[in-house]
């Protein structure tokens, strides 16, 4: 039981990071029906930016993060702007376009920061808490708190602001949204920008948990995507639940299958997508016909 609970706790903080990645995917998807395959690479860029600012420039972690978020938000804007001519026309081409951006970002990361990774020390040096015999790292709590705060802010933005409401409208029917005067392109751009920002948030937070390397984003990206699908693509509560579920699944498979844990995660994910493509909270059908 002790081991069981400890495994869950270990999975939850990574799960929160997966949830943030999933939110980035979902936000772009619900707004424009596109899966941004470069998202994982933006996460890598965010992780490197945050860790560079934190380690090399010796900025405090709380300052390094926002700067990284702004920069990756800008990357999101660039991707959206370049691919805008294809919007609502050919999704398969857009998908390949985002893969193209992923290839470029991947190479840029290696060109700038090198092919070897780096370890990032925890910005919260206090010792782990001991709750009923369970060890909880303080940094895990920080990750959870920040992820929760980001989610709440995002939900408030979508539901309480005019811009957010406009984005919801675009998500439901982009033609009708255009007809009532909403700038669909700008709405998409904001979705991509927030998506990029969330990627840096996830990448920055995960730095001290994992090893920051060029391969980081690939693994996080595909697990975040799995999380988004598991919860129901485009759904915000779905992204959170899916992220935590994948995190916990990950922690268990790592314990039981060691090197094969990735294999098991992907196979489980494939089976889930086959059985229920719309996920737990998903409403929209897969093919937006």
């Amino acid at each position, binding site marked *: 039981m002790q081991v069981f609970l400890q495994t869950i706790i270990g999975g939850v903080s990574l799960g929160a990071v997966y949830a943030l990645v999933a939110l980035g995917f979902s936000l772009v998807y619900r707004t424009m029906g596109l899966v941004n395959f470069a998202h994982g690479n933006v996460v890598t860029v965010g992780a490197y930016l945050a860790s560079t600012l934190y380690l090399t420039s010796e900025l405090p972690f709380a300052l390094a993060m926002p700067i990284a978020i702004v920069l990756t938000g800008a990357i999101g804007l660039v991707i959206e702007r370049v691919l805008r001519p294809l919007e609502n026309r050919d999704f398969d081409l857009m998908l390949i376009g985002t893969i193209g951006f992923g*290839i470029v970002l991947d190479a840029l990361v290696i060109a700038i920061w090198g092919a070897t990774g780096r370890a990032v020390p925890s910005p919260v040096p206090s010792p782990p808490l001991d709750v009923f015999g369970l060890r909880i790292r303080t940094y895990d709590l920080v990750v959870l708190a920040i992820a929760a705060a980001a989610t709440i802010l995002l939900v408030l933005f979508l539901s309480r602001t005019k811009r957010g409401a406009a984005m919801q409208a675009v998500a439901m029917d982009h033609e009708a949204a255009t007809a009532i005067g909403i700038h669909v392109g700008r709405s998409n751009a904001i979705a991509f920008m927030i998506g990029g920002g969330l990627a840096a948030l996830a990448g920055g937070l995960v730095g001290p948990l994992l090893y920051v390397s060029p391969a980081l984003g690939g693994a996080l990206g595909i697990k975040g995507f799995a999380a988004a699908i598991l919860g129901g693509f485009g759904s915000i509560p779905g992204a959170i639940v899916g992220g935590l579920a994948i995190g916990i699944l990950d922690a268990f498979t790592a314990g039981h299958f060691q090197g094969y844990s990735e294999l098991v995660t992907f196979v489980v994910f494939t089976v889930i997508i086959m059985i229920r493509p719309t996920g737990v909270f998903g409403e929209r059908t897969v093919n937006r016909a």
Partner: protein
Amino acid sequence: MSTPPAAVPRTTGTPRMRTRIAILAAAAIAAWLLPYGLDSYAIHVVDVILIFAILAVGLGLAMGIAGQVNLAQVAFFGVGAYATAILTTRAGLGFWVSAVLAVLATMAIGLVVGTPALRVQSHYLGIVTLGLALAFTSWVTNAEVSGGAEGLPGIPVPTLPGIDLTSEYLYYYLELFAFVVALGFGEFIVRTSLGRRMRAMRDDALAAGALGAEVPILRMTAFLLASVYGGVAGVLYAGLIQYVAPESFSIATMFLLLAMVIIGGRQSLVGCVVGAVSLALVREALVDHPTIAQIAYGSVVVLVVVFAPTGLAGLPSRIRDAVARRRGRRGVPARMTPFVPYEMSAAADPDAPAILRVQGVTKQFRGLKALDDVSLDVPAGEIRGVVGPNGSGKTTLFNVISGLYRPTSGRVEFRGRDMTAHAPYRLARAGMSRTFQNLRLFGALTVQENILVAIDRSHTAESWRYLLRPISVLRRDRDLHRRAREVIDRFGLTEFAELAPGALPYGTQRRVEIARAVAAAPALLLLDEPAAGLNGEEVRQLSEIVRSIRDSGVTVIVIEHNMGLVMSLCERVTVLAGGRVIAEGTPAQVARTPAVIEAYLGDSMGDLPEVSAT
């Protein structure tokens, strides 16, 4: 939106054919002589390029031709190579035996990877196949049998009697042979029945299914083909390098392969080869600066996607078009010629049993009841009208009848058999054909190919003929072309045969869609608002066409808002409102039914004083 009159393309005559043969001959000679001018390193590079070309053709077949986003091609490659390695080094089998087993193993994996395509498409399929490719690398890096991260060395060189394949010069000819066969077989598929169906499915899976293309089998076939090409490439790779390691089959290789196919032009197999060769050469030139090469080809992928979606293969025709536009030469605008009526078949038997029987069908979309206990009998040989206000469930009814929707309850009997919720392609094969309200023509196929897809009734499961009886495939295809010509001529579309439907005027597109539905030789034809967007003269022609189709022995059900057309064309009319049948009878009877007047004009009209014409 008005469409400019489409231009007739220059005829494709013998001179063009002759150039093509000349180019092929020149390419063959160049390929044959190539090794004589290369040093030992260069020939190795060429050997690797040929392997990538085979992989790219396989990926092009799945992605470009069949529209199945397949990011697991590199895993097929890996399975082929690893299976060869394991069977030769661990099980001690001979190279060629291992090669055959390896290709079979890859095909099995291909079917597994393709299974998700039955449920999901596009982005989802992309991520699932990518996940499975990652799972493969994760497995080979960890498993003992595959040698872990270090890989497996010591694969024996394949032997052929009289040819020493340890020489990479002679290995080149083995690969060249495999490549020519692979490309030739791919082109054979693309240009005949199977490929045409795949392209139709890529353009519009729904319409392809409604015309009898077995979409699930076609998707699996696409993955099967991709896996065969991947497996063959993997075997050749194992024989060439004699060593396999996980990093050769990484996601980076997958994306490189994808870039080759996209840059070359995914919808043309030759384009895929051009992309593979040129990208591999660029990568070779930048071999000391791999990151720069990666940035370069990543950017080119983005640029190609945005500015030249047809890739390098599409450039010649784009340039030709641009030149033609600049010169302002348009050719003679193509014109539709009059429809040639069918000969009367025997008059329909008035006591004929109903060809279609809809019984108590209800269709619920969450809270909304789109159809509520709808029953309907249509006797053979009738033209039945289905009318009703917008949102009354007419198209939903068509979708239930043609198998696109599964009814919540009730049954649909077609030609005396219960066909409720059968897949659309099964209904199509049983003799049902339909058009769509918003036109669903296959955009990247010519008008003639659109018709060909409909005429083709062969089973995709019989595609083994491509391997064992290629001549019979060709002969059948020639026969299909002849019959397609007949349909095209009859519908007055001769001058449009070689054009893409998207460029045609709206009225012509409508006629193409009807011709396509009729080409499937249905017993029951469903027309969903065939007159929408047509002008008066076109509506008159339409009415003539529909009547003639019926006279040839086809039962027709037509949804229409144009009341003049319904009244003059249909023998009986069924009126839907709010998902229920509110009236049925001859047009004159129905027009007098109070419930119909109420549904169309609202019940307040009943209170108005009657206007008398004095």
